[in-house]
């Protein structure tokens, strides 16, 4: 069981009086802290408190403009890696190496941009900040490159050194300049041109033979005292024999211990095997640093890599870097290389998933990078879905566009709870702003029957007050969504009635109107309105309602008037009663007249 190394990180909040306490609470992506006193007293404190609230976050790098490019482009590589068809054997290895190189080129591009920003910076503080970011990115690329060589390419003895030479050359500029000097200078003796060898493509056997030859020749020359007259040439010879002391004398040309290591290996063990690497690495580090200096975090990370301790590399990098980007992506890639055994972790059984979750959560603090986070959660089989559910609901729905984007993401993943919740928020906001059409379409999208009923009622109330419908387009084109709630169905059908009437299709309109009451779809509170709507149809020259239908209407009227419970205030009721009574009388009259005409019409030879 892994122990959590080191003490927990302490973050200091400035300005808070040491005699007081701190109260806090969580926001969706941050921690709020402020000074307070928990002893609750009735009267105020004699010493006024600090009026500041501190908002504390742990993923501030998401806000960096230049790093954003890194996040965006690496996201593309990440998703590509999850989706590519797995090849086998050598092609698989080549595939993974390609992905690794892609990641590295993205880091380098970001580094370059950061470097340009540092040069162009207007003040020294920002310039320094940019420059320090450049060094961090450079360290990242250095580590990633080494991991690529040792873990992904898995270079066997021989080629390993060549790759390490390339690695050192890429990251240590001085080597290049020395090579240039040596190449350019006149070489009177054959063996000095051996400096040309870094980078040459030679087979392992050729290299070993050549090396053996040179090594023996150099040793012979040294012992014969050929260079006694020239200390410079003598030390050069010693270097080529891999004499550590001689190499160390040229320390100023070697920028760091891993440069020393590779140089040393070049001259003493050019066919070094991967498993022996860490012996030389450790001793190179010790020799180079000497007694006084202590290794820095970067040294420890590289050392762990030379020891092929992947978990240690990841652990050290997690501590050293300020954001999860590096460890999340590298670990994921190494997992694809099948290099991570299931490792007992403190906060989750799967290291890859743990790191990806941490990285993705951080992205959600950003107003647009959160979209990248969604994909990362998708590829976390254990806790990805539930993490996404929790985070996505907290995205501020500042524009309709954003809301639609969020909803699409939820709908694609069948996150019905979240869809319902988000649509409800938008629907209620629309209702409060009296945008009933918008409210209705949100409740339909949420498949929220109860809310659809509520909004339909509002529409109907609106109609009663104003005599016309708002948002006709929406109601006319409800389609199957109409079935969501009875009230909504009624609203749709009622509007249809109005359309039929407008098109002068009176018979159809009449049948529809009647059916709305007889099928019980219409709420009783609306029946009076419907019956009143029937009046113009009853008063037409032609007979529209058949006798049968008129009997039905009469029955509905009776139903309505007889079963009416006592409602409203006593005074109001008298007034209402008056109006109601008049209406009812009018209806009764109209219906009676229509009945008479209908009977006559149906009874006579012309009618049918």
């Amino acid at each position, binding site marked *: 069981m892994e122990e959590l190394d080191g003490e927990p990180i302490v*973050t*200091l909040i400035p300005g808070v009086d040491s005699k007081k306490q701190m109260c806090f609470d969580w926001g969706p992506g941050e921690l709020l802290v402020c000074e307070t006193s928990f002893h609750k007293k009735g009267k105020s404190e004699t010493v006024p408190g600090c009026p500041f609230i501190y908002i504390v976050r742990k993923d501030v790098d998401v806000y960096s403009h230049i790093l954003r490019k890194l996040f965006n482009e690496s996201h593309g590589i990440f998703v590509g890696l999850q989706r590519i068809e797995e090849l086998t054997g050598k092609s698989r290895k080549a595939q993974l190496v390609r992905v690794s190189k892609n990641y590295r080129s993205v880091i380098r591009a970001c580094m370059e941009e950061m470097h340009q920003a540092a040069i162009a910076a207007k003040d020294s503080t920002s310039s320094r900040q940019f420059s320090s970011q450049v060094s961090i990115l450079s360290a990242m690329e250095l580590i990633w490159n080494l991991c690529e060589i040792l873990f992904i390419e898995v270079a066997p003895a021989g080629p390993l050194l060549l790759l390490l030479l390339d690695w050192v050359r890429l990251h240590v500029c001085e080597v290049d300049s020395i090579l240039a000097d040596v190449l350019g200078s006149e070489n009177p003796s054959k063996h000095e041109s051996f400096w040309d060898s870094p980078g040459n493509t030679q087979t392992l056997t050729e290299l070993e033979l050549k090396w053996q030859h040179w090594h023996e020749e150099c040793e012979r020359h040294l012992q014969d005292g050929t260079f006694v007259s020239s200390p410079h040439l003598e030390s050069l010879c010693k270097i080529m024999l891999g004499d550590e002391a001689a190499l160390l004398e040229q320390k100023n040309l070697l920028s760091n211990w891993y440069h020393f290591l590779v140089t040393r290996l070049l001259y003493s063990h050019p066919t070094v095997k991967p498993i022996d690497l860490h012996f030389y690495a450790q001793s190179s580090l010790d020799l180079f640093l000497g007694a006084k200096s202590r290794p820095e975090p970067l040294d420890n990370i590289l050392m762990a890599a030379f020891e092929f301790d992947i978990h240690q590399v990841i652990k050290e990098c997690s501590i050293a870097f300020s954001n999860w980007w590096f460890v999340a992506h590298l670990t994921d890639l190494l997992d694809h290389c099948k290099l991570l055994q299931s490792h007992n972790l403190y906060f989750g059984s799967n290291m890859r998933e743990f790191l990806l979750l941490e990285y993705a959560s951080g992205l959600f603090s950003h107003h647009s990078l959160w979209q990248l986070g969604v994909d990362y959660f998708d590829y976390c089989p254990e806790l990805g879905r539930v993490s996404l559910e929790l985070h996505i609901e907290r995205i501020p729905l500042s524009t309709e566009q954003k809301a639609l984007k969020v909803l699409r993401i939820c709908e694609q993943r069948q996150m019905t*709870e979240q869809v319902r919740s988000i649509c409800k928020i938008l629907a209620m906001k629309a209702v409060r702003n009296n945008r009933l059409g918008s409210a209705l379409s949100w409740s339909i999208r949420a498949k929220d029957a109860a809310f659809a009923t509520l909004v339909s009622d509002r529409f109907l109330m609106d109609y009663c007050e104003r005599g016309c419908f708002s948002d006709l387009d929406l109601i006319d084109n409800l389609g199957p969504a109409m079935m969501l709630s009875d009230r909504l169905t009624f609203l749709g059908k009622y509007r249809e009635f109005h359309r039929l009437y407008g098109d002068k299709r009176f018979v159809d309109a009449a049948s529809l109107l009647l059916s709305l009451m007889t099928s019980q779809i219409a709420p009783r509170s609306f029946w009076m309105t419907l019956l009143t709507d029937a009046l113009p149809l009853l008063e037409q020259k032609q007979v529209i309602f058949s006798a049968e239908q008129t009997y039905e209407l009469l029955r509905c009227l009776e139903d309505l008037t007889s079963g009416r419970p006592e409602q409203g205030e006593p005074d109001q009721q008298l007034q209402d009663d008056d109006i109601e009574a008049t209406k009812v009388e009018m209806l009764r009259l109209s219906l009676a007249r229509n009945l008479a005409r209908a009977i006559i019409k149906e009874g006579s030879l012309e009618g049918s």
Partner: protein
Amino acid sequence: MVSVINTVDTSHEDMIHDAQMDYYGTRLATCSSDRSVKIFDVRNGGQILIADLRGHEGPVWQVAWAHPMYGNILASCSYDRKVIIWKEENGTWEKTHEHTGHDSSVNSVCWAPHDYGLILACGSSDGAISLLTYTGEGQWDVKKINNAHTIGCNAVSWAPAVVPGSLIDQPSGQKPNYIKKFASGGCDNLIKLWKEEEDGQWKEEQKLEAHSDWVRDVAWAPSIGLPTSTIASCSQDGRVFVWTCDDASSNTWSPKLLHKFNDVVWHVSWSITANILAVSGGDNKVTLWKESVDGQWVCISDVNKGQGSVSASVTEGQQNEQ
């Protein structure tokens, strides 16, 4: 790397007792002994005072934001025995309801999960807990649990909504039957779990005993999709317990001691994604804890008061980022 990204100057004239972010992290509400409740817009690292709400006649102890589907609604409770509910209507904040049913200081307010409707639980030093339910048209229904805790109730916290059975086949228009529960902590050293019965009355379902002094705070952890329920409690006795119940039906809660501090522990709070517990102590620190694979709680971070001139680091770009 943790850093202070924004500092909001509330200009409160007296001690601040609570600060709460709204659901989306765009607004900040604060309350103080100066009797006011203030609301700030804190988007993009800025601070704009939106409202300065007056209405309480004593120090205001807590504020709580309701779920955004109900609009912009904030509740506050105070030493003046009142609970006030504030609402934003047409761009201005106003008092929309005042609850005066308690005989002494109201210490804690907490909104129920939005699935239940708009319900507010309030805990008071008179030992009672009241539940305010919005019934429409500006009306609030009140249910009171008298003598919930002897001497006084210090904290209330709702359980996350758990829907029994499937939500998919609900008949049109019908609301699913939620089992509403909340936890309270009081001066009787107990944590009590309350459940709503079918008749709408609240009944004490369980007592959780482990503290030897007043329980100062309880916090029910958000749900992460597992059947386990988790509650954190802290007390005058310096102990913080994490209580877990593996199965909703079995109802056996087991406490685990998170840590024993040297002083009173006043406040505990779960992060939104439920994996980190923040604990404040009398020793002037806020510590962050996370559960390890083997069930042990480990301190992962320490937020401490600064001693003078330590300056907060601000990463480039984020002040002027949109």
